[in-house]
């Protein structure tokens, strides 16, 4: 499968009557997007605000972030099986509006979390402070069931990113990159002397506010399967995960998975990147055993020499991570796990809820229990009243002077377990 990705650099977003991309400025019509969002009669209200890097702005609670993209001259669309036909994606040409994101804002439940500061120490911890954020502030109809609201909010973000992304279809990109993975036997034959490396992509899949979707299918009901890495770049996997802001994978992360992009950078040089195995993180222990058995079986079947395994979430998924690692290693295949830590405020406690001696190569995204004080910022997009109620917050988190003292687990993307951030740790 071969995908050509054209990147259109967006340096300014303006609200306008006309919708277009001119130079590096994206012009969007606010009312058109609001109409698109409110076509879903489960939502009562939608407003749009723009936040720029460096602004004295705090956005919270953030639900999802989506990068505007579109397929070019294709019958398929991005986010297949969700808002476009369930066609196989990952080949042809895709245009991406780099430098901006659609961010859905609003609390689905009382403890909804996720802070993105556009300046200051909090901004350093989230990749989303570096994007121009097109924030959709959503309000549900009175009495709407949380499942329905979650779905409506999820679709509002995806539909808007799809709509805005299409403005880039006829625009000449600033940069073009090509990614290609061949069918397994051909790919193995192409670089016969390089180690065959695969990626085990674990998806959050436990229930409401803890779900991911693959071509629209609920990941908790899937058995592990293989995918071409380029399918992710067209939105084959989307996020319905709203809990644990610091280490959830937003849809933006799924579209821009850094494990995939880094493996491609070494593809044909140091390694032969032969494909992705997706798997889930369920609550039922029998599902965990079956899924990890299948993951190890597929890794062996693909003839892999090495595997990178990434996790999403905390606690229960630690067990899936260790089961995957252990069973793949037992096949004689080397593994590296990518995770984050809940090592206590002093960083001295056991980091994960599970462990095994075979998990001897690990990359961490940082310690989610680390405490940070966020300064008062001039503007809030969303609402702050819930800050005491979020993970990492506590009674008195929101102080009278407007500063917030929280664990970094409240910050969206701070310890992302795909490595989409700057923090890590080194053994000394």
């Amino acid at each position: 499968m071969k995908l050509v990705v054209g990147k259109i650099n967006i340096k300014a977003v303006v609200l306008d009557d006309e919708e277009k991309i001119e130079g590096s400025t994206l012009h969007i019509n606010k009312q058109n997007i609001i109409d698109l969002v409110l076509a879903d009669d489960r939502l009562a209200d939608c407003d749009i605000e723009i936040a720029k890097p460096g602004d004295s702005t705090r956005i919270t609670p953030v639900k999802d972030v989506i990068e505007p993209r579109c397929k070019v001259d294709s019958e398929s669309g991005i986010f297949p099986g969700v808002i476009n036909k369930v066609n196989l994606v990952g080949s042809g040409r895709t245009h991406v509006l780099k430098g901006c994101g659609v961010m859905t804002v609003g609390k689905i439940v009382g403890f909804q979390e996720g802070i993105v500061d556009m300046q200051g120490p909090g901004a350093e911890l989230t990749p989303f402070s570096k994007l121009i954020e097109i924030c959709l502030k959503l309000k549900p109809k009175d009495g709407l069931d949380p499942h329905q609201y979650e779905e409506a909010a999820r679709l509002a973000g995806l539909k808007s990113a799809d709509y805005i992304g299409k403005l880039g279809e006829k625009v000449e990109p600033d940069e073009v990159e090509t990614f290609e993975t061949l069918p397994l036997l051909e790919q193995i034959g192409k670089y016969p002397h390089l180690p065959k490396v695969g990626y085990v992509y674990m998806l959050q899949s436990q229930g409401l506010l803890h779900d991911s979707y693959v071509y629209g299918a609920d990941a908790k009901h899937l058995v592990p399967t293989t995918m071409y890495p380029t399918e992710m770049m067209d939105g084959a996997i989307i996020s319905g995960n709203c809990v644990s802001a610091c280490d959830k994978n937003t849809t933006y992360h799924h579209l821009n998975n850094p494990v995939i992009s880094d493996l491609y950078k070494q593809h044909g040089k140091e390694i032969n990147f032969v494909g992705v195995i997706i798997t889930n993180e369920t609550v039922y222990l029998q599902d965990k055993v079956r899924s990890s058995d299948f993951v190890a079986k597929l890794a062996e079947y693909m003839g892999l020499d090495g595997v990178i395994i990434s996790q999403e979430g905390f606690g229960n998924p630690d067990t899936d991570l260790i089961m995957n690692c252990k069973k793949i290693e037992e096949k004689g295949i080397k593994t590296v796990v990518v995770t984050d830590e809940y090592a206590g405020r002093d960083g001295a406690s056991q980091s994960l809820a599970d462990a095994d001696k075979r998990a001897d190569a690990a990359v961490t995204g940082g310690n989610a229990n680390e405490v940070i004080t966020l300064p008062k910022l001039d503007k809030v997009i969303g609402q702050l009243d819930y800050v005491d109620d979020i993970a990492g917050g506590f009674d008195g988190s929101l102080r009278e002077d407007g500063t917030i003292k929280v664990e970094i687990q409240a910050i969206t993307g701070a310890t992302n377990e795909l490595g989409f951030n700057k923090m890590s740790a080194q053994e000394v």
Partner: protein
Amino acid sequence: MVIITNNPMVRDKFDTLFIDGAYADVLASVKKAVIDKHWTLLTHPLSGSLKPNETYYRTVFLDNTHLQYIDMQSLEYIEAAIRVYDKFMRDKPRPQWPAKVLADFAFIDFDIAQSTLQRMGQDATRLTKGGGS
């Protein structure tokens, strides 16, 4: 199968072994059942991404077939969960939540329990109060 829970929403819908106590009490009774009654864990005791010093509710499913031995895997998982719980509570105790937030936590725990029953292929009505035999 037995559902050990302190979540009134789960108790009201399903036949449960209800613990009128905290998250820690649920974990303690699960551990006791694994050791004393030789029951086996069916679900992970740290289900959901809500932290132990955040949510108040916990629901765990066990197989109540009495084995000849203690299932060591179940014991390892429940002991690890208790260690994680203690670590979080030592760092920062759970806040006094308003009723609305508590209700949301109960709902999430309930929903995960319900999704898990579906995954188990269990006929939820069989376990539903007044829903069947």
